[in-house]
């Protein structure tokens, strides 16, 4: 398949509401390969562009369990298997004393998996991305909202998509080169 010379077409909006409405309309129009960009999190926007990903909480749960079991086993193995010390006949597996470190390790591994999982699923760090080629895009981290329909979308057609985006009360539509 030949690579499209364009990355996509990007429409600029002034408010989150306008972007939200545009995202819904684009989806109803049949576009699937698109992304919305905003300077602040907008509730429901991810769903509007068809984003459904529930993996992150699962990753954090697994991380927490690994930390919990690993933390406890570390202490159990050191104290009861590797170097057992019999002091006054006290139990080697003295679990109440092992709880604080087990808890700390649970939190540590869960937090690490939350952060690294979020970055990995988002594909960050990403040194280059075509959307930054749009000269207006610097405003996406200030006060403007953008909707980008990507060229790899099967319904993408440079002229028709441009007309469609322009009809969404966009402030302007720009081409995003690769």
């Amino acid at each position: 398949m030949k690579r499209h010379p364009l990355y996509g077409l990007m429409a600029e909006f002034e408010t989150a509401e306008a972007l939200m409405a545009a995202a819904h309309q684009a989806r109803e129009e049949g576009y699937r390969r698109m992304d919305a960009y905003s300077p602040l999190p907008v509730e429901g926007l991810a769903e509007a562009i068809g984003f459904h990903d529930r993996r992150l909480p699962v990753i954090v749960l697994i991380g927490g369990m690994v930390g919990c079991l690993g933390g406890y086993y570390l202490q159990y193995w050191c104290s009861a298997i590797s170097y057992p010390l019999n002091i006054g006949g006290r139990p080697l597996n003295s679990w109440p004393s092992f709880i604080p470190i087990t808890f700390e390790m649970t939190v540590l591994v869960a937090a690490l998996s939350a952060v690294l999982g979020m970055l990995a699923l988002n594909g960050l760090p990403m040194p280059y991305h075509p959307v930054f080629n749009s000269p207006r895009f610097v405003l996406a981290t200030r006060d403007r909202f953008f909707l980008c329909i990507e060229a790899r979308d099967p319904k993408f057609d440079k002229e028709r998509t441009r007309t469609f985006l322009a009809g969404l009360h966009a402030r302007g539509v720009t081409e995003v080169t690769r």
Partner: protein
Amino acid sequence: MAPEPLQKSSNLEPAPLIGPGYSYATVTDKISSIVLTQKTPRSWIFGFAVAFFLLMVLMFAVGRLFLYGVGIWGIEIPVGWGWAIVNFVWWVGIAHAGTLISAILLLMHQEWRTSINRFAEAMTLFAVSCAGMFPLLHLGRPWMFYWLFPYPNTMKVWPQFRSPLIWDVFAVSTYATVSLMFWYIGLIPDLATIRDRSKRRVGQKIYGILAMGWRGSAAHWKRYETAYLLLAGLATPLVVSVHSVVSFDFAVGIVPGWHSTIFPPYFVAGAIYSGFAMVLTISIPVRKIYRLEDFITERHLDNMAKILLATGMIVGYGYIMETFMAYYSGNQYDKFMIIARMTGPYMKYYWLLIFCNMVVPQFLWSSRVRANVIGLWVISILVNIGMWLERYVIVVASLARDYMPTMWYRYSGTAWDVATYVGSIGLFLTLLFLFLRYLPMISIFELRQLVPTESGKAAPGTPHAPVEG
């Protein structure tokens, strides 16, 4: 935009969290211009110079410590824990407010946290750095600090996992790591803002690398918010656990004045108390110098003062309970410990701490005092002093009056103790000044969410039926 009434017209309606007339753009420009300006304020240069000098004092004191050992400090058996441990507990306590503000208040939907959470988190991070330093310096052979961790070694021994001291290693290092991640994750969207607003190549490069290519994609925001909430949920029990574990260092020991079940909650309340005092101590001059009164409003100061009052009351309850239990337990050693604290060689520390921590915050009942910025600042500093004295009394006064009169000792810190402590404040302030200059001190993207939009607070999500095909 319709002008909103600025004044607190009635008590029923809370004052706004953000000054009137701000939009996404002006909020962004105001905060980012502090970072991107070419003109460093004079006050910053002066403050940084003082902080850097104190940091050099720390370097000198620590250098001397490495040369001669802990003998240069005033510690002597039975008082093996002196200023170093007092400072450790003090700094860890200060660190707690940052996580409390960023995590617990986030989960409780306290929107006012937004303007103060960033630098409270930074404060947490820097305070933990100062705190973590002290037990290591206290080791005697600090270069062997890695012996604290369980690693496979030729001696084939492991740390004693039943000791609170090793719990402390895990608690504080976990806390430092989680605080760093929480802070950095919160910074990423703002670093992207700074990257995009920077006019200079160096700034674009450095902030660009730090922002990791953040572009504000809707899918990214979604995962970002999930991760941030989960981190807040994880940090909430963590913050309670850390100072509880610190209190176990004392409570598990059988020294009179330490061996008490009230210690964990009492330490956690004290930590929040001192932490909020430190947030006030820092935020009051910062909002003045950088003219951030529109973002850190009087309502923020008022709320923090109320938390200060509430936690101060809990701490005061702890002092009263300690005294009552010494009497009620009928234990002669506990009874003697309290009398020794109140009338012994450390009595001036004790009564000064009662004054600073129990009497002074009572002024905060008055709304006039809470609205008086200078008064609030003075109170916050007195609370910080009081909390340091509290730890001094707990650590030193208890050890110096042990079970046997033959074991009694009159401890006082040396000039090197003072130099290390003052130096640690220098380290804290140096990091803080660098942060204020080079990173956005208020969370810009969260502040944008507080800007009132024309159609209401947040952008509403309209329900939609997915059309497939």
